[in-house]
């Protein structure tokens, strides 16, 4: 079907650009003929010129293109050949904003390796460090609080969202000293920078590796090297717990002072079943906990009964686990090999991963789903790289190489930034990642103004979930206002003097090794024809002042 087209010297494909982006970024829906050997960059150029012709104030920006739900990562012709799509019909190219960090902020230095990072709070970032201290960074810029108490390195830390106001923070940390600590403090009061724990959770017999917080926020669970998972209550049994523990503490401990106010809590239940270190736990819904272990298994636990409800063996020791994706039911996990795997536990009968991403060079230390996008993932590896992934392509979207040593942890922050910490004792922030909240729109199936109004109403009525939606929506809808495009995607040839310099470390990552695309037939590509002048109107680059909406 395509062989005739391939041998044709003036090989062209008729395409129509469609999008779900808001109107100023909508190209005219007429179909145009484009050269078949265009890559993503060439297509992006065409869309930008179309947009510029429609509205002269348009500022060029990179786009990514989808054909049948798959991102175009090859020359258009090869892509069509590989997918077996006929080039004779008009091809519908859906374009979205390209996902890549546009800006890299200065790294925040720590005293020791940064082992954990949590970006679930939009205004604060929580980091845990091997020196036993957890730190709170306001807007990821200034360290406002230091959470003390652990005698060994912190392995995991998390915010507990208790519906409190923004200036009340509630944090749990897990450490190699076999304990978990709960902290509660007021961020509006900056005076006591050092904060002590109000409750210590003891019970694990070996170092605690991971901690996860129940979405309804009165329970936390932790996985440890003693191969058990323990559930802890944040609030309950405080009274009986504290008297005993304080007594005990007074008898056999020589420390004094601030620890008087501490309570000790014990686990409400223990899940046994893993045979080796439980390296990661995730608590996506109220009733289910997922855990990953060095015994090569991922297990699903029912919180009520404490029974294992699903079990999957993958053959590698696992280091990290996260649930997300389509209705938060996909599991992404990485471990002692360079492959990030995604499973769908809803599929019966098969334990094969549905996606495998294998561009890393070493162990994967952390992986996180984007909090609101179904498709986007971030992963960090001991090879010093943080990679952004999209389920719709096997190539990484972007690779951030700001760390000099092993990257130990990574998380999304505010939906548009990636924060990562590593063995070079730095917290790195790559921001300006524009992810259009696609599923929100597709789910609601209402016109956007209506949707926004409904959202506002919802926010006025009810709790935090809706507010979260609103936050993300308001953040991402006009992203250009908050984060001025620090750099245009480096592939687009715009005159350099009109734009700020490119960040050095952001570029498209290399082709992954383990990606299996169908083999391409040997086709001699014709020389690239000139883009016909009739199809693309002439345009000029706007002045920076008029580019601003």
């Amino acid at each position, binding site marked *: 079907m395509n062989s005739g087209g391939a041998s044709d010297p003036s090989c062209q494909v008729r395409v129509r650009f469609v999008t779900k982006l808001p109107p100023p970024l909508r190209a005219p829906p007429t179909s145009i003929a484009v050269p078949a050997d265009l890559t993503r960059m060439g297509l992006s150029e065409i869309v930008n010129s179309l947009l510029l012709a429609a509205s002269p104030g348009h500022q060029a920006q990179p786009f990514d293109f989808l054909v049948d739900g798959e991102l175009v990562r090859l020359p258009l012709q090869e892509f069509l050949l590989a997918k077996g799509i006929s080039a004779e019909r008009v091809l519908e190219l859906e374009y979205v904003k390209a996902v890549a960090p546009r800006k890299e902020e200065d790294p925040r230095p720590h005293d020791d*390796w940064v*082992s954990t990072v949590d970006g679930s709070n939009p205004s604060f970032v929580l980091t845990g460090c*091997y020196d036993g201290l957890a730190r709170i960074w306001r807007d990821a810029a200034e360290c406002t609080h230091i959470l003390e108490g652990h005698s060994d390195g912190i392995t995991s830390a998390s915010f507990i969202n208790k519906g409190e106001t923004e200036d009340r923070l509630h944090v749990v940390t897990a450490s190699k000293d*076999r304990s978990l600590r709960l902290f509660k403090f007021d961020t509006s009061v900056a005076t006591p920078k050092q904060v002590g724990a109000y409750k210590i959770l003891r019970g694990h*017999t*070996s*170092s605690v590796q991971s901690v996860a917080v129940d979405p309804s926020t009165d329970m936390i669970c932790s996985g440890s*090297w003693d191969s058990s998972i323990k559930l802890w209550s944040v609030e309950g049994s405080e009274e009986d717990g504290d008297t005993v523990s304080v007594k005990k503490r007074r008898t056999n401990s020589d420390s004094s002072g601030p620890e008087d106010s501490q309570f000790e809590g014990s686990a409400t239940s223990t899940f046994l079943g893993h045979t*080796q*270190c439980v*390296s990661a736990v995730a608590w996506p819904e109220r009733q289910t906990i997922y855990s990953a272990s*060095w*015994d090569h298994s991922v297990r699903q636990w029912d919180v009520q009964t404490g029974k294992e409800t699903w079990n999957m063996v993958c*053959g*590698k*020791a696992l*280091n990290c686990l996260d649930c997300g994706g389509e209705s938060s039911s996909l599991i992404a996990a990485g471990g*002692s*090999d*360079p492959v990030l795997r995604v499973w769908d536990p809803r599929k019966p009968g098969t334990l094969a991963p549905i996606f495998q991403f294998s561009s890393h060079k*070493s*162990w994967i*230390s952390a992986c996180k789903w984007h909090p609101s996008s179904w498709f986007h993932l971030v992963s960090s590896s*001991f090879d010093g790289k943080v990679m952004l992934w999209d389920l719709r392509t096997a190539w990484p979207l972007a690779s951030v190489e700001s760390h000099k040593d*092993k990257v*130990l942890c990574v998380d999304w922050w505010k939906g548009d930034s990636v924060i990562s910490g590593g*063995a070079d004792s730095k917290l790195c922030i790559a921001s300006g990642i524009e992810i259009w909240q696609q599923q929100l729109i597709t789910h609601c199936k209402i016109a956007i103004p209506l949707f926004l109004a409904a959202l506002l109403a919802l926010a006025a009525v009810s709790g935090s979930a809706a507010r979260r939606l609103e936050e993300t929506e308001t953040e991402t809808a006009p992203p250009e206002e908050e984060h001025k495009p620090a750099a245009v995607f480096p592939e687009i040839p715009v005159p350099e003097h009109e734009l700020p310099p490119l960040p050095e470390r952001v570029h498209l990552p290399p082709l992954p090794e383990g990606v299996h695309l169908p083999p391409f037939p040997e086709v001699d590509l014709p020389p690239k024809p000139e883009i016909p002048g009739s199809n693309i109107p002439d345009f000029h680059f706007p002045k920076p002042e008029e580019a601003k909406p």
Partner: protein
Amino acid sequence: MGNSDGDRHNDDLSAEDSPWSEGSWSDDDDDEGSLSFEDSGDSGEGSDVESDEPDAAAAEESDSSEDEVAPRNTVGDVPLEWYKNEEHIGYDIAGSKIKKRDREGRIEAYLKNADDAKNWRKIYDEYNDEEVQITKEEAKIISRLLKGKTPHANVDPYPDYVDWFEYEGKGHPLSSAPEPKRRFVPSKWEQKKVVKLVRAIRKGWIKFDKPKEEPNFYLLWGDETDTADNKRQGLSYIPAPKPNLPGHEESYNPSVEYIPTQEEIDSYQLMYEEDRPKFIPRRFDCLRSVPAYEKALREGFDRCLDLYLCPRTRKKRINIDPESLKPKLPSKKDLRPYPRTCYLEFKGHNGPVKSLSVESTGQWIASGSSDGTIRVWEVETGRCIKIWNVGGVVHRIAWNPSPDRNILAAVVDHDLLLLNAGVGDEEIQMKTKGLLQIEELAPDEDTGDKKPAVKWVKHEQFNGIMLIHHKLSKKHSHHPFRKLPGLPIAAVFHPIQKMFFVATKKFVQVYDLQKAQIVKKLEPGVRELSSISIHPGGDNVIVGSKDGKLCWFDTDLSTRPYKTLKNHSKDITNVTFHRKYPLFASSSEDCTAYVFHGMVYSDLNQNPLIVPLEILRGHSSSDGRGVLDCKFHPKQPWLFTAGADSVVRLYCD
């Protein structure tokens, strides 16, 4: 027949035979050489009349051949016409010529016939050229023969039959009685027998051999040498090698491409004679103009010489697929997981890392280096969490295998250090502290001159820290092993029984700890042992040697190695078994570590399966030393290697 005898006969016959002597010679006068008895046929009747005269004795006498006189002539049986025109008829016995007689004329003959009544009995013997007179008896015999009668008259051709057999009273085998009826009626007995057989055949009691089916097809172009005749043993037919068939270039008019150019022909002159082509193709217009092949005789001779002189033997060609000779090993894919790639490096030491040990849960490893430090690392991240500066070269280091005692034992120079690793639970830490305090009663730094009793207690208590024992046995201070034949190199405890393996330079000795005596002695047959490891099942031991060989012993099978693997080019520094996976590894000074699959079956009849899996490279050589130690992770299929390049590497599956 003698002349005298003949004369006598002549005399006897001469008187009577005169009347019918005529006619005998009458019409025979032109051909004297042939004696015709036809003429004398009618004269026989006359002799018949007078035949009663000669006596029987004379007839008998004439029959004997002894008195026959040898012929005068000696020419032999040649045609006499050869001598027709000669003067002589031949030669006598003395070799002198025998002259021909003068011929008688017809008249003379007639006269003689008329004169002599006996003349008709004279016969001319042409061979001897003489006249012979036959006797009367002879003439009679001739005449009787001519008539078709018996030669002698007194023979009765039809004598009366004398019936010598006595018939009376003898009975006769043949009877003249008529044939009985039963001879003409079918036999009832036979019929019964036939019916029986028929029934047996019908019921299938009798089975006939099936005729052998001979294949009616055969290999038309099959090798003739493969037939059954040629396969027989002994002096079998060995076909001569076939000469090459002529090709296109040997045609009288080959294509142009076969004809060598002049340069090529010239270049032949530069070649050695043996390398020169034997035949240079040429073109001719027609077959008629092709000259005789000048080397035909020479080549035919050479060929014959070859066939004659070259000994021909039957080559035993066995059709064996070379692939089938390889041992059938399972594919590496099926034997996963095993360590393949290095993902983590533990960097920090400043000198060659001489030894490492993995904690029993697999969370930490300890390494000892010749820079005088002992480091404890976190496996998960590669972070160094503890450093002790012990101020001496750390030769060996080991964790206590029991998970509730976090004690590190290290051999530093000539001392044994016991360290509280301080990584476990608080309770465990307290316990460990307590243990170490007890030891402080005895000196903590064991210099090897403690009493044996104390050591025994300690050994039982620790349930097998091999280094204490090994160290002590090295010092020759432990009483069970006083009589070690040579310097002990390494030692391990049996994982299940109370046994103890000590590797000396040449042998591995197995001691029973309860009886304190040698149970077995393993002989690897290599130059110098360097390391030993025991399979978790306890029956299999591997040892590494300084000539790069790894020997696998099945202690139940033999004291000799079950398999010896020569894989490393330099000294093996350590060998180790995995405690859970069927894996073992060896590290060597040639900067590599080998990983093998070593499956031990519970079925005692099945030999262990050894499959080489992977060569792990990555360490760099420093001071000619490579990988100094290797240890498996206790729970994962991972291998730690300690290199002389001061790096510890972790190889994962």
